[in-house]
């Protein structure tokens, strides 16, 4: 028996517990790495029978760290259910403001709490120093900026959704509040500072990548397809657009696809060892059709960014690959900081738009039975698909979350790192560190539960060709 079935037992229901299994062949060489993330898969069943108007609020229970993304993706789907294709300008802009606020706080949090310790101290540094507390000691200003930026984004969420987490702002067909002049003026006071700080965070990520380009080229890097929403003119659009997929060289796979029919282009493969599905592009097939989503994919797929400073940053980013997609796992950090700046610029533009004080908040249309809502969440494209019966009850829900879209890439990144850093049959601190850094680049939801501490509960298992456990290490 050369392979044995591995039983995966979720150690805990805590969202965000990650477990990696590394499989070896007879010669003790790495053949595969498998990342397991415990997901609350019962959700799709749980929402069946619930009234459609409840869903945008209900789905926020899916994730404690990006509830706004679920809120908006579901609200977009429910716009379709109530027959609304075009929101009022005020409603769309309030939702965008909420979304950019979420993007801003999520990216800031990820960078300062999770990523900056790796970049500032190096991957090999002792975990006792390589954490957010270490950053706060050595770079106190930076730590303060991180906290302030996160707070700014959260206040925007509160002003548009009613609460920092689990708000109710987006309703089918619109929103339930606008932004008052007083609220707007509070945000305007600080927005220039936020843009400045975004630029300095961007600089850290950029300089780091430039300085370590050789090393990073070999760190969990691999060619892949890239998928994201794109505006009709090819601009990056985090809130709405059509689907675009490009391959590792930048050639178009599909473009300007109306996401209402996403399932004609994207399918999900089930593998026996994982609760998480493996999405792939149908025309290419499961073997090679998997793709990346998130900041890296978005920068790679878009033609330009419609906010000036982020566009300059994008051009610099694309410069190192001569305009072709960048396929380095570690380039996610740089891409994420470009989006941080873009979000700040978009927030500034929106705050200066009088439509935010408009009072036309909701529209109605003709009820439909089926609808899809997509959004570019901080971690990547998020799919919400629903069917609703004539009694207004949900009969079908299919969600493809960002982390699921990045499933294969994360497995490959871990595999690459394991091949490089595993020597012998022992899990060393160094291996654990590097696996952690590779997974973290994707900012998967497994870091959700741990954002506050900047630590990732990670467990690595090493199994031989017979499937026997050789070593195990947890953090």
């Amino acid at each position, binding site marked *: 028996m050369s392979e044995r079935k591995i039983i995966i037992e979720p150690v805990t229901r805590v969202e965000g517990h990650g477990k990696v299994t590394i499989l070896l062949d007879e010669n003790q060489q790495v053949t595969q790495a498998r990342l397991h993330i415990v997901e609350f898969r019962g959700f799709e069943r749980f929402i069946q*029978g*619930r*009234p459609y*108007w*409840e869903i*945008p*609020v*209900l789905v*926020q*229970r899916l994730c404690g760290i990006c509830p706004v993304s679920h809120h908006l993706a579901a609200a977009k789907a429910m716009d379709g259910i109530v027959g609304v294709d075009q929101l009022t300008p005020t409603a769309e802009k309030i939702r965008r403001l909420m979304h950019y606020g979420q993007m801003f706080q999520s990216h800031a949090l990820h960078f300062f709490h999770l990523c900056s310790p790796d970049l500032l101290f190096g991957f090999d540094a002792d975990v006792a120093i390589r954490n957010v507390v270490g950053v706060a000691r050595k770079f106190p200003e930076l730590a303060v900026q991180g906290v302030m930026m996160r707070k700014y984004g959260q206040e925007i969420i509160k002003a548009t*959704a*009613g*609460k920092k987490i*689990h*708000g*109710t*702002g987006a*309703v089918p067909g619109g929103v*339930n*509040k606008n932004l008052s002049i007083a609220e707007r003026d509070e945000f305007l006071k600080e927005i220039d500072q936020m843009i400045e700080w975004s630029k300095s965070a961007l600089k850290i990520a950029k300089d780091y990548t430039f300085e370590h380009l050789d090393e990073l080229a070999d760190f969990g890097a691999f060619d892949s397809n890239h998928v994201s929403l794109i505006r009709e003119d090819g601009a990056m659009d985090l809130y709405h657009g059509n689907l675009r997929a490009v391959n590792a060289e930048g050639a178009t796979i599909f473009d300007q696809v109306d996401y209402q029919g996403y399932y004609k282009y994207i399918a999900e493969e089930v593998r026996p060892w994982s609760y998480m599905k493996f999405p792939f592009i149908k025309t290419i097939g499961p073997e090679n059709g998997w793709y990346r989503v998130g900041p890296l994919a978005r920068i790679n797929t878009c033609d330009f960014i419609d906010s000036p400073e982020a566009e300059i940053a994008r051009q610099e980013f694309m410069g190192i690959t001569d305009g072709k997609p960048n396929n380095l796992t570690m380039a996610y950090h740089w891409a994420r900081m470009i989006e941080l700046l873009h979000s700040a610029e978009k927030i500034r533009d929106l705050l200066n738009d009088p439509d935010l004080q408009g009072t036309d908040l*909701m529209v109605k249309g003709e009820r439909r039975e089926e609808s899809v809502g997509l959004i570019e969440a901080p971690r990547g494209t998020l799919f919400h698909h629903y069917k609703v019966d004539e*009694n*207004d*009850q949900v009969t079908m829900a299919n969600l493809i979350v960002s982390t699921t879209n990045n499933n294969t890439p994360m497995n490959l990144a871990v595999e690459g790192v394991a091949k490089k850093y595993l020597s012998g049959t022992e899990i060393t601190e160094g291996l654990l560190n590097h696996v952690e850094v590779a997974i973290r680049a994707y900012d998967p939801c497994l870091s959700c539960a741990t954002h506050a501490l900047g630590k990732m509960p990670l467990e690595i298992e090493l199994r031989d060709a017979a499937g026997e456990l050789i070593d195990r290490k947890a953090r």
Partner: protein
Amino acid sequence: MKFTIDGQEIEAKPGQTIMEAADAAGIYIPRLCAHSDLKPIGSCRVCTVIVDGRPQAACVKPVAEGMVVENETPELLEHRRNIIDMMFVEGNHFCMFCERSGNCELQAMAYRFGITAPQYPFQFPPKEVDASHPDVMLDHNRCIMCARCVRASQELDGKNVFQSIGRGFDRKIGVNGEKVLADTDMSVDDRSADVCPVGCIIKKRTAFKTPIGQRLYDHQPIGSDIEEGGHE
């Protein structure tokens, strides 16, 4: 007519219940099944007070001259907390995504009593949703059996849409026997669609239209209107 609540002398009119007299005097006695437009039935027991040493439901007990009523004793607070607690675990009350959140009397009552998590284990009983009616939905997960809807339908709407059926743990609100709401003469304009203290009877397509911060209990605890003497 005079009597006392927690030592405070109260003026009452003949025929008034303890609750009515207390309301008029600006003293709030917590309640869930009582409603100012409906005949009291004394069923939820949240309004329990001690009258001359014996527990009574303040919503049904008429005032008598010289009565000594205790309302805010530690024992009564404890008793009321327990009842509210039981209501949470006997139903499926997911406040975090319930559209009545912020306007819900049960939730507001829990906040008033400082309950953040129930002390009893959740029972997660299987309950139905009746969404058959075009304009009104019935989510039995959130029913607390206050029977306000039963009374409102009969007393105010001149209909008989709702009834209490079954016994004990299986007790539930039925519609015209064992039918669904679509089979009744229920209208969204009926008063019975308005009186539900929780998120059981809801008007379709009205959810979450009021932003957080502007809902009934966002800023003031339940009962504060009475305590401020604003009895309508």
